[in-house]
Structures are given as C-alpha cells and as structure tokens.
C-alpha cells in the first residue's frame, strides 16, 4: 500500500505516492532523480547521503520518505544559486577538499550545518563536526581547510 507524501525538494514542491519502506535517499535518487546524494553504507555511519531536512543535516539513508512528509529537503544540487556556488562548495574547490568526490556531497551538507552552528569554528570544532562523515581519499585536512575557507568568506581568501 502506497502512502502520499508532500516534500519540498530544493524549493520545488513534489507530491508522490511512495512505498512506506522507501528511504529518503532512495526517494531523492530514484523518484526525484537527484543522484548527487550518494549511498556508501547501510548503517548510517559513512554520511555520504547527508542532506538538510528542514535545515538540519540528516543521513537520508536512515529517514523514511514518509517521515519527511511536509518537510523541506535540500540536497547538494540545490545549493548553487543562479550559477554561483555556495561558499562551502567554493571552499571544497579552492582547497582541494575532494578527490574521488563520492563523500563530497555529504561533506558539503555537513559543512553547511557546522557553519550554521558556529560562524568561525576552530579546526578542532570542524573535525568534531565531521565525525559522522567518512572520507577515504583526502585525510580530511583539505576538507577542514574548505570549511574554514567558507567561514572566512567574505572576509577572504586563499588557502590556509
């Protein structure tokens, strides 16, 4: 039996009938076609699937689509405005905060939440904030640089 859900995804209202067991990550990827949200595990540890649910970072592999009914979801595809990158996206590009790119959308969404909580977090605070997101390529230093870069904008500029 399918259940109706109304979810605003990246500003666009969507109404669908979904299976109650459908995960939010599957809803975004398979129903909305937004494949920027990645899935790297089944235990909500890796954080590749992190999205913003009503402004808060959640792991979309452990939220059911029906639980998101009536909510606003932001994915990595919804960050750039009029062709301009979000400051956290810009930071990842400027600071080489990614290599294979698979964990990156989740890292960016978590980075946004870290900056919502603290305007100028220390490196240690950023590292603590990233504990729910795994990266196997970068060794994290450049990711911390990237989030610091975004925190400094528009104070500006350059790498560490």
């Amino acid at each position: 039996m399918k259940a109706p859900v109304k979810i605003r995804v990246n500003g666009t209202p969507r109404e669908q009938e979904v299976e109650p067991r459908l995960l939010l990550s599957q809803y975004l990827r398979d129903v909305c076609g937004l494949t920027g949200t990645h899935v790297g595990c089944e235990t909500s540890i890796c954080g590749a699937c992190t999205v913003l649910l009503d402004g808060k970072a959640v792991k979309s592999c452990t939220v059911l689509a029906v639980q998101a009914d009536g909510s606003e979801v932001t994915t990595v595809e919804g960050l750039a405005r009029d062709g301009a990158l979000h400051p956290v996206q810009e930071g990842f590009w400027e600071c080489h905060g990614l290599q294979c790119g698979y964990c990156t959308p989740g890292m960016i969404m978590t980075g946004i939440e870290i900056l919502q909580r603290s305007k100028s977090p220390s490196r240690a605070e950023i590292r603590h904030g990233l504990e729910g997101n795994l990266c196997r390529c970068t060794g994290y230093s450049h990711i911390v640089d990237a989030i610091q870069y975004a925190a400094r904008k528009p104070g500006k500029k350059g790498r560490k």
Partner: protein
Amino acid sequence: MPKGYVGRPMKRVEDPRLIKGVATYVDDLNPPGLLHAVFLRSPHAHARVRKVDTRAVRAMPGVIAVLTGADLNEKLGPVPCASPMPDQKSPRHTALAGDRVYFVGHPVAVIVARDLAAALDALDTIEVEYQPLPAVIDAEKAIQKGSPLTHPELGTNVAYRWSLPGGDVDAELARADRVIKVRMLHQRLTPMAMEPRGCVASWHPGEETLTLWTSTQIPHLLRTLLPGLIHVPENKLRIVAPEVGGGFGSKLNLYAEEIVVAHLAMRLNAPVKWIETRLENAAVTTHGRDQIGDYEIGVKKDGTVLAVKSHTVADLGAYLQLLTPAIPTLTGLMLCGCYKIKAMRMDVTAVHTNKMATDAYRGAGRPEAAYAIERLMDLVAGELGLDPLEVRRKNFPKPGEFPFHTATGLVYDSGNYQAALKKALEMAGWEKLLKQRAAARKQGRLFGIGVSTYVEICALGPSKIMSAGGWEWGSVRIEFSGKVTVITGATPHGQGQETSFAQIAADRLGVPIEDVVVYRGDTNVAPYGRDTYGSRATALGGTAIVMSIDKIIAKAKVLAAALLKANPKQIVFEAGAFFVKGRRKSAVDWKRLAGEAYVAKNLPPDLEPGLEASSFFEPPNCTFPFGTHVVAVEIDKDTGQVGIAKYVAVDDCGPQVNPLLVEGQVQGGIAQSIGQALFEQTVYDEGGQLLTGEFMDYAIPRAGDIPDFLLGSTVTPSPSNPLGVKGVGEAGTIGATPAIANAVVDALAPLGVKHLDMPFTPEKVWRAITNPGATPRVTSVGGKGGKR
C-alpha cells in the same frame, strides 16, 4: 611561481561536477528497461552445497531470472589471475560457487528482478542446504600437518613457494657482529573505498555489442580479459569507468560479478545493474596485506647492515584474484629499502585459507617491505645503542651512487635520501623533539619519536616485468577550431589527472589551459591503456601525452614552413607560435595551422591532413620515489590511547606537476597509514565468520583521528621519463606506518618493549604497558649484550 601551468597548485577542472552533485557514478545510470541483480552469498566459510531450491523464487512478482553455478559456470570463463607463479596450486575460480562454498560471501546464486526491492525480497526465499566443513582460517596452522584443507582437491593449502635470493646471505649473517631476529605481523586490511563496487551492462542487439559500465580502475585490462570469459569479441566490447568513488587497489581487479552481470545482459537482452552493499564490499572486495614474517638482520658493530632475511607466510585467501600471488613478491623486491645491503633472501610460503582473496591495496606489498626494514633499522639502533638516524645515514647510498643496484636486482633510478632526511629533521625540530621526549620521560610520560626513511617502486613499469604490458597510451588532437583534446589510457579515479594532464599539454603546446579537455576511462574513446595503479598514471600517461604533442609539433613545423614559404628547419616554435627565426610578426598559431590541416588545400605533397598523434610510452625502468616521515606520539598510560603529537613528511616524487594534488595524495595516504597503524584490522573468527563487515566494526579514521600534517618535499628527477616525475599515490601508505610504529615502540621502550604489532589499539597498547614482558620477543645474538 613557475611561468607555465606545470608546477602550480591549480584547483581541479573535474571538481565543479563533483561539488554540484551532477557527476555520474555507476549507480546513477538507469538505462530504460533496467533490471536489477542481487547475489545470494554463502554464510559459511567452508561448506558443501547440498541443495539450492529456487522454485519459490521464480514465482515471485517482478522476478525475471534465478541462476546458480550449475546454470552459469559452464558458459563463462573463470575469474582470472594475471600473475600466476611457477608450480602454483590453485583452484579454478568459477563465477558462482559450484557444489562447495569456500568463503563467507562466496556467491551461490544470482537473482534478477524488475526492481531492487523485488530482487531483495526474492533473495530471502531461496533455500540452500549447506553441510558445514572445517574452515582453514590461520595461515600458519594451514601449513601444518593434519590441517583441514581449503580446497581438498589440491591436497595442500600451499598455493606456491617463492624465493628471492640476492647475494650470499648466510655468509654475510655468519660474519655479522650481531644478528637480530623478530617476527612481525602485517595485518589484513579492508580497502573500503567510499563508493562500493557496482556495474551496469547493456547489450545492443542490433550491433551485437556490449557496454559494461563498472566502478573500476582498469577498464582497458577488463577489455583485454573479458572477451574470452563472456565470449564477446574484444572489438565489440566497450568498457566505461564512469566517475569512480575511490579504488586504492580494490578496483584493480576483474570480479565474478562483472562477468555474471555482463552475461546476464546478453542472456536477458536487457540492461542489468548490480550495486554492492557495504556488507558485500567488506566481504567480497579484495583485502590487502596479511603477511606474517620472521625477519633476521645481520649487522656490524658500527651499524653497517650486511644482510637481511625473511621467511614470510602470505595469506592469499580462498581464490586468486588478478594480482594476488604477485603482491608478496613486491615485498621481497623492496625488502632492502633505501640501504646498501649486500645480501638478502626472502622465502614466501603463500597459503590458501577460507577467506576473501588478498590483492593490491594502496602500496601493494611495498608497505610490508618498508615496514619490515624500517622496524629492523630501529631494532639495530636499539640493540647496538646507536642513534637510529646514524644507522640509517651509514647505510644510505650516496647521491652519486645512482643508478643504484640493490641486492634484489633492482636499479633505483635516482635518489638523495640524505637530503630528504635532513629536511624532515629540520622541519620537525628534531633536537627540540629529543628534549621534549627527555622531559616527558622524566615525568613518567610515554612520549616517543619515530622516523622512517622509505623508498618505493612506482610507475609500473616496463612491459618485461608486467603480465599484460607496462606501457601507457595517450593521444592529442588539435581540433579544427584550435581547441585541444587529450585522451589518456590511464584511468584516474580521483587523483586529478584531468587537471594535471591539461597543465602538461597546455604548457607544451603554448595554449590556455581552458582550451584543453582531457578524456579518460572509456575504451571507445581511449582504445588502449594500461590504467591507473602502482602510482603510474602521471609518469607513464603524462609521458605518452608529451610524446604525442612532440609528434604534432614536428608535423606543425612542416605545415608552418609551407605556409611561411620556408624550410621546416628554419621554423621556431615558441609559446604556441610557429615562425621563421627573427620574424615573429608573421607567426602562425595553432588555430590557423589546424584550419589548414583539416581544410587541407595548402598542404605540402607528403603531408597527411589532420593534426593529431598518439603514442605508446614504454618506460626503460620503474621509478623509485622516497622520503622521510617523522612522527611524535604521546600515549595515555591509563587508556593506551596513542595520540599523534606531530607529523612531518618530506616526500620526493620528482618534479611536481601540481603541488596541490601532490599534497592531497600525501595527506590521504598518511591518513590510510594512520588507519593501519592505529585502528584497522580485518578479523575473521575461528569459524571464518567476518567480524569486520561494516564501518561499525572496521574502523577507518574519522576527521578527529587525523592531525594536521607538516609537509615538505625535495625534488630529485627520475631519468626514466622526460617529465622526471616519479609518482606519489602510494607514498603516504608506504612511508607512514613504519614511522608511527617506530614512534609507538619508542614511547614504550622505557618499559622494555622492543616490538609491538599493528594495529596499536588502546587495548593492545594498554596490555603492553601493563605487561611489557608479553610483547613480541626480539632476539639478538652475538657481540656484546648477548640474548635478551
């Protein structure tokens, strides 16, 4: 800052699609009519398969097909091993299990359904009757008499024995003042790329061609290997590695699932997708390392090393994957490290066990070698009461001694080990660290300093040492518009060569980098290649591009000469302009030349139209990057927790095309090394159940576990390629683990600890603190001091 693009820390051209979430990984592909495959896997490490009942499944809604080994194995070739050893005893590795299963995760059946949920529902409905059999789990027990057998039909668990003798090791050991013996474990690791494996296969019935999109490092090797296994001619097979979410050697393979999914697409005449779960990734994607080594090192009183010897038991797992048997041989080749050692010998006993296969994992055999020799050098210093830095310096070849011939038969291309060590010590503030350690020890704190001076073998590597060719291919085309298309046979998957190769091409052609686009990873676009592994892409793939550009420039000079009514020998090429010497004003540029080359009305009689060239680069030798890592650790006495207080790395990978990318490679490699040193270990229980099947149980480092690194470099060009580059992808995983181990053992030295095996988990370190007498023994024979 250099004048051109090469040498500049440029941000990557591949990043916008990745940070916007619009890049295409294999799971993002959904061709119309797509079917979904899932595999039923063995829950047993070793069992007889008595019965597989699939009747109930076939009737389930959405299920298209259920196939077992009996249905498929005769139709498909076996999973290949490209590096067999002489007299190797190994089983035929069928795509699906037959009447036995040999490891947890061994695929028994495949289900194809209209959607993934239907396939997963069906999975639980297959009934399999297993008769569990004794499992072989411990590689050392496996070679004892009376051990159960992994593959009873082979009559032994020994897959092969291999020896690498170099010089008269017994004579050198006999004349040594001191012989130090230690047993060291190199634990099994799980690569855990963030993107699990997966593939989509699509059969095109009109053309009778097959496309396989797969998360792989080696699309070209797959195109070479797959035709004979799935019975599709090579020229009707297209392999695409789309965006690949990390490999680290675990995607340097041809897996059973790729063979089966390719076959299913043809058999069912529909596109078929299979995406690995994380549980599957931990269980059935190749593991790394897993060696147990008994080492001996013979030295003179002054610290001069005479000989090193090892007997190693290597755990290969149940089956041989692509390069499984070759990995321990790389350990042997690099066992002398960056030292002048007269004689060496390595004997390997490689063993089958009821576990997943081991194979290449970032470093692939070299981390084991670097770890062994660097631990041994510290033990030598400790036993002789010498400074570990002095022992290293004493045994380094001098910069003038390169090319340097090792006892293992390798020729190290170039090196200046002294310079890297010196720089690392300066950056680390060595004297200050010594004082810090002394002060900490006075207060009863456990503070240790560790150094490793490593060398690695990269840019693999001449065809004579590789089973399927060690060259690399590249192609460059100046388009009609003057834009530049670069195609590489290397298959970067996160390393950033779309940027660094564009830097190389733009400089050499004298064009803006914005005009250059680099393509990779699709065998219909890059027909030949030997792909990305062994830190080879820039040294070999970059050179193939340089060679192609040089061919184009030579042709362009002939064309320019015709246009300028001059002799080709009079033509000068500078910053993208061709002109007669002294007459720069009348220069012709690439756009003009390309237009003429394709319109082809004013060409000299012998000149073909077009402006493109391709090249195969066959390197004369491997490259041998090196460096020094310095680590300071402080151990919490109460918990055994190891904290990294300082991390300094100086790596020499030759000239750096893009220092920002080099920094990224080094940082990522060190982080993986810290994972191995402090956290990671793949664990099977006595019955062969995998206990580390998820991120819950297998601890890859988190952001808070990794310190900021202080990185530096020295530059010693390689004579093995015109760019002089050496490769840097694996430096971190080779240089860092021994430095951390040396620091941890140094911290515990006041308690009498001489060696400890990785990973240095809090529990293990706490046990060493509370009972140092139970830590691994180090035997020291001869000279003063005698036995411990």
